[in-house]
């Protein structure tokens, strides 16, 4: 009897065996998904961009003439169901396991329909939670078609490098789909998505290094695609665009964002024609302290410890050895930064009625239940009326390798 039972169980294995099995080469790996609006409500234009494995691989010689990517656009009601329709054009089973980005057109994002279609991402096991959301100024399908990287021809590599580096410099936020759902379903705060475009608009004339949004940057050469700034989502609906500078400030104020050092310029306090180039680094966590009062305005104190390395003083004013000048700079930089931050905070308080810094995390401890927290209403009651004090604390100011600048008088002698 035992023996028969054992045989039976052993035989069950091959009977069910190999379910789910797919050979790697029988799948097409979609790297980017594009989502657009159509005229019909409930129908979307879905774009799949799959990588061609044969391009860029030293192992094979046959694929060198082929395109590095295959981009297919079709209409459909659902992201996952559209995969099968796409197979009418694409040869292999479509796998979303390695998808890096979801590109959403600004039109769709602003319409509020975006939440409906992206909802599928939480159900399926295929799409990673670390997929980044990009909002494109034009249609997502156009964005994906026009994006022709020159060096990283393989799409996954392009997005990987592009997004990692741009996030490190802070000009775009980290906009993982997981964070999107966290913030949207948390019913507080606003979500920042990466803003990008392939269409060059009129270049902005009076822009400093990060005061642009994508499309405005006067760049010559390279790939037409620009990543700069962020799209603000409140309750799953896009309401505004932030410039690169504002995004940077938001990244600094938000402790959940990973940001390394960034280069930034400040107007020279001694000579307004020039700007001082600095390396701004925040190597200690941002400290957010919230004092919650039920019937009074809540107090939010934010302290940002940071370090400044002066990398260039084009005005050639001696800030390093002149003690007075140094003192001036030490007081001036935090003041300027605070001014920027306060402007942004004010904008969020007045315009968005909610924050983009994920500060609601720090107030949750005052509530014993979710109901209580939701009743207190961070978005409409607490945050817009809060007294917010942003304090930039300059921990270190140093002047790079060389203390002295070249003496212009002597050089021109």
């Amino acid at each position: 009897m035992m023996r028969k039972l054992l045989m039976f169980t052993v035989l069950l294995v091959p009977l069910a065996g190999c379910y789910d099995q797919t050979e790697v080469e029988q799948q097409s790996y979609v790297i980017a998904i594009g989502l657009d609006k159509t005229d019909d409500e409930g129908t979307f234009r879905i774009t799949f961009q799959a990588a061609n494995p044969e391009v860029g691989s030293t192992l094979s010689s046959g694929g060198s003439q082929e395109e590095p990517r295959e981009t297919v656009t079709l209409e459909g009601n659902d992201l996952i169901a559209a995969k099968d329709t796409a197979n009418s054009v694409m040869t292999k089973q479509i796998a979303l396991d390695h998808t890096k980005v979801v590109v959403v057109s600004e039109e769709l994002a602003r319409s509020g329909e975006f939440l409906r279609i992206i909802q599928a991402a939480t159900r399926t096991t295929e799409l990673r939670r670390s997929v980044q959301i990009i909002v494109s100024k034009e249609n997502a399908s156009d964005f994906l078609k026009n994006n022709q990287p020159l060096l990283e021809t393989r799409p996954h590599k392009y997005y990987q490098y592009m997004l990692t580096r741009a996030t490190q410099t802070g000009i775009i936020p980290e906009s993982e789909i997981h964070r999107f759902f966290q913030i949207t379903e948390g019913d507080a705060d606003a979500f920042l998505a990466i803003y990008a475009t392939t269409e060059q608009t009129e270049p902005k004339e009076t822009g400093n290094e990060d005061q642009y949004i994508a499309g405005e940057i006067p760049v010559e050469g390279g790939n037409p695609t620009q990543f700069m700034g962020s799209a603000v989502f409140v309750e799953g609906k896009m309401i505004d665009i932030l410039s690169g500078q504002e995004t940077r400030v938001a990244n600094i104020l938000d402790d959940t964002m990973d940001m390394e050092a960034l280069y930034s310029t400040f107007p020279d306090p001694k000579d307004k024609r020039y700007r001082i180039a600095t390396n701004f680094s925040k190597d200690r966590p941002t400290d957010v302290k919230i004092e919650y009062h039920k019937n009074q305005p809540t107090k939010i104190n934010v302290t940002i410890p940071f370090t400044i390395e002066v990398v260039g003083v084009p005005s050639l004013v001696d800030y390093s050895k002149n003690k007075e000048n140094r003192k001036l700079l030490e007081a001036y930089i935090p003041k300027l930064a605070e001014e920027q931050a306060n402007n942004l905070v004010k904008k969020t308080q007045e315009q968005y009625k909610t924050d983009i810094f994920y500060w609601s995390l720090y107030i949750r401890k005052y509530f014993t239940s979710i109901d209580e927290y939701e009743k207190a209403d961070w978005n409409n009651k607490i945050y817009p009326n809060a007294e917010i004090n942003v304090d930039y604390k300059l921990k270190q100011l140093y002047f790079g390798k060389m203390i002295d600048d070249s003496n212009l008088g002597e050089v021109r002698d």
Partner: protein
Amino acid sequence: MFFKKKKQTEDPKEVPISNSLEKNTKHLKQLFSFGLNKDFSVREITARYSNKKINLFFYSSIVNSTKIHEGIIRPLLEAQGDDLTTIITLENIKESKDFGEVVDDINSGNIVLFLEDSNKAFSVNVADFQHRGIEKPENENAVKAPKEAFTESLYVNISLIRKRFHDKQLIAEAKPVGARSKLDVTVMYIKDVVNNEVLENVRERLDNLTIDNVRNIESLEQYIEDRPYSIVSSLLYTERPDRAASYLEDGYIVLLMENSSACLILPVTFWSFFHSEEDRYLRFLFGNFSRLIRFLAFLISLLISAVYVSVTNYHNEMIPPDLLLAIVSARERVPFPVVFEIMLMEVSFELIREAGLRIPNPLGPTIGIVGALIIGQAAVEANIVSPIVVIIVALSGLSSFAVANISMNYTIRLTRFIFIFSAAFFGMLTLTGAFLLWVMYLASLRSFGVPFLAPLSPNFQSNRDTIFRKMIKNEYFRPGQLKPKDMRKKG
């Protein structure tokens, strides 16, 4: 039934020795088919001391003729004395009273003397079996270790062990094995350390053997082991006398036999197969580094092919996109599924190994060329396998060589195939299941009553000499799983 029948027939060897020399000679000549048996020699001598006839019987091929001449024949012809024992100058003389003993003696290289008017036979050991000299170990190489290896002579082997461990308690007990050709199995142990239960167990198993002939240690292993169908061996086979000596010291039992250039150590644990004697000769860090590498090799060899199969078939989200695309582009022109591809390469690797082992020495280099060409290049260029599979299989093959012990090596190679198949069913799920079952099986094993994974599981007081070893100065205990009589080694 067959054996019983044999026992019942009248055995001509059981006949007692008679008083008549003539009768005895005739009987013995008949027993050994004198005349037909070319090297069976009989020499008749008239001894000077007694003026009586003495007949000498021996196999001329297995005795030392100078020794016979100088120690027996010459004294008999020339010396004067009262009695045979004072005449013969060789080490020892044994008396026997029946033909059974006489026959065994002659077979094992003794010369037997029959005296006129005496019902006793005297046998003198003049055996001189031919054997190799002491050479370097062939299979258990080491850089920093003694270079002597066992050879095919029991006496030499015992001497090699005694040379390393000077203790009066070191016992070399002989147990005759075999019904037709009797050979001694020498059981070596340290009397005041060894666990009596294990020793009794071994003795019993040796006594219970009912076969005509056990030629050597290698076949003895299969006769006395617990689970002949098991995937792991329960005795450790080694050709290094230093290894045998160190195991003896820890309370293990060593089995030796004539005709084997190795010994068997028992009881064993998983760790004995995993360790190499060189680990102990190397300094603490160096030895443990080498163990770490070997443990990695052990895992790689067991699992890498199976993991590749499961990851590519079921979990391709685990592969970084660059590698994934590289695999895909390589596999696009390969006509077989991954499992088949891996099996193809694994089997051809096994083929090369087997062929390389059996091929006559002068042809050896061809295997390298053919193997490298077929596997390394041609197969990839012909799109039969993808280059990544070649890397995987080469890695797993290479790693299997790092697990030096031959029994463990086979265990790993067989298990690898089980794992590949299990990975092909449901990916990581079944692979984890199979691995778990395999470890459970190891944990359930016992070698002569000692749990196979001890002292790790179950836990015993010991030096914790498992994956890593302690500083040699801090080793206080003998392995507790053996339950030795003397637990402390130091201090």
